[in-house]
């Protein structure tokens, strides 16, 4: 499903002295079946932005279109289930949503709410626990006896189990070990290759460079750049103003330019960087 934001503004606590613009006139498109990364500093409004996609927040003004569903300030809280079934959301620190007495029941919770039969939900739970890289034997355990990383995976499985078409990930790998984070990121990439739309909020620019096809930069509630990562990371203005940091490979390439290398465009992944260096070394 294509997701369109049109002049979306969101104000927290409107009409009070503590009013706070979470989003300020944001217009952009998130393309169907693509992997889109959303980046920006802490408090820039990334979480606020994505919460509009499944109508957890309503815009103060403007409209959001998700497939054929339109969300406006007047949208009420009735009949949102179909939308929330289509748009799955993994929250920042999703382990705080676990509550059932077994992992299996917790993963089944989402699908059952969206009308799946117990048998289908159970089947889905068994499939998802393996998908997120955990052993099936954990299904019988209490979610509160798991480690933080395992909890995170169970929570992710619980969202994937409802088979959403669009998956929103709010810093899903924060606090995971390096191997774990790569496994999880690879999982999201493979889900996208199976035809899902992935929206990833992250502070890790290497993940953006390695996995995303599109990226959007948010600053103080405003959308300040959008495009393919290769282009955005070469946007000199953003870099000069410190509104964006570079992936490691690009930062390395930038330092190389001081040593006589020259890049038409900064390579953003390790592979691109390797190829470029090789070419330039062999070239002269």
């Amino acid at each position, binding site marked *: 499903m294509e997701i369109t934001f049109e002049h979306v503004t969101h104000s927290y606590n409107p009409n009070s002295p*503590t009013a706070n613009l979470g989003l300020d006139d944001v217009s952009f498109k998130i393309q169907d079946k693509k992997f889109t990364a959303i980046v920006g500093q802490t408090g820039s409004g990334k979480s606020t932005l994505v919460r509009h996609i499944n109508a957890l927040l309503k815009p103060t003004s403007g409209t959001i279109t998700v497939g054929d569903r339109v969300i406006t300030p007047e949208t009420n809280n009735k009949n949102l*289930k179909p939308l929330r079934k289509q748009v799955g*959301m993994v929250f920042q620190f999703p382990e705080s*949503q676990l509550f059932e007495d077994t992992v299996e029941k917790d993963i089944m919770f989402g699908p059952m709410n969206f009308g799946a039969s117990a048998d289908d939900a159970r089947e889905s739970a068994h499939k998802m626990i393996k998908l997120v890289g955990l052993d099936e034997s954990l299904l019988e355990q209490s979610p509160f006896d798991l480690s933080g990383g395992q909890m995170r995976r169970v929570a992710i499985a619980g969202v994937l189990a409802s088979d959403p078409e669009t998956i929103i990930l709010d810093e899903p790998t924060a606090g995971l070990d390096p191997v774990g984070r790569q496994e999880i990121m690879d999982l999201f990439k493979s889900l996208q290759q199976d035809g899902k739309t992935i929206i990833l909020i992250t502070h890790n620019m290497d993940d953006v460079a390695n996995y995303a096809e599109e990226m959007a930069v948010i600053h103080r509630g405003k959308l300040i750049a959008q495009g393919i990562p290769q282009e955005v990371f070469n946007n000199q203005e953003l870099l000069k103003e410190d509104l964006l940091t570079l992936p490691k490979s690009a930062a390395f390439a930038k330092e190389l330019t001081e040593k006589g290398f020259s890049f038409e465009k900064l390579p953003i992944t390790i592979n691109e960087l390797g190829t470029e260096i090789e070419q330039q070394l062999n070239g002269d």
Partner: protein
Amino acid sequence: MGRYLPGDSLVYRLDPRGKFLLTFYFVGIVFLANNVASYAFLLAFVIFAVFLSKINFGFFLKGLKPVFWLILFTVALQLLFTPSANPLWHWGIFTFSKEGLVIAGYIFIRFILIIFISTLLTLTTTPIEISDSIESILKPLKKIKFPVTQVALMLSIALRFVPLLVDETTKIMDAQRARGVDFGEGGLIKRIKSFVPILIPLFVSSFSIAYDLAIAMESRGYKDGEGRSKYRVLSWDRRDNIMVIFMAAVTGILLFLRSY
């Protein structure tokens, strides 16, 4: 009552201890009013105080909302059940009379006075200031070995936790909504059941926050008792004295109007 509203005006700058005690004092003297003149005078005083706070009147009306039904019920009770020698209207156990009307009116104004003045206190005083005030007011009890500092600490931690728990609750509710929970839909049983997915994570995270806080305090060497200095120092100055004198004058006028 309301949540603290950041702002700046004379009422904000008063010493919280004074505000706290005088609010209770005022709630006490509300019950001294006994005729139209005295109620009108107290109402004028509260409106004046609201005016001094420079806070939008709407916030005070909001304070009435949670007790709206209680007020309506009490007022209706007085209207329909006040016994009278010459009722205007009588039906079964119900009596409607002029006396009933007057008493209901007084009770209604009493509610308004008490709610507005306590809303004024909570809107202009942070919870931390209130707990500091309570600590300062209870200090004499140290002589009889009452653990004042511990109680004050418990109070301020509890207060500190309220916004944290509110945020945590919204977060958990959002996460469960995203997994297809509809809060406030369906029958009573279904509604009650829909709170289980909130309450359990909320308990789990409150315990873990409490546990982490305790560890963090101990590892930074927290020790209660003698010799702890204070970060927030309360200061009582001239305007607070003026406030007390003003309140004494209000009491004097009230006593005069009572027998008027």
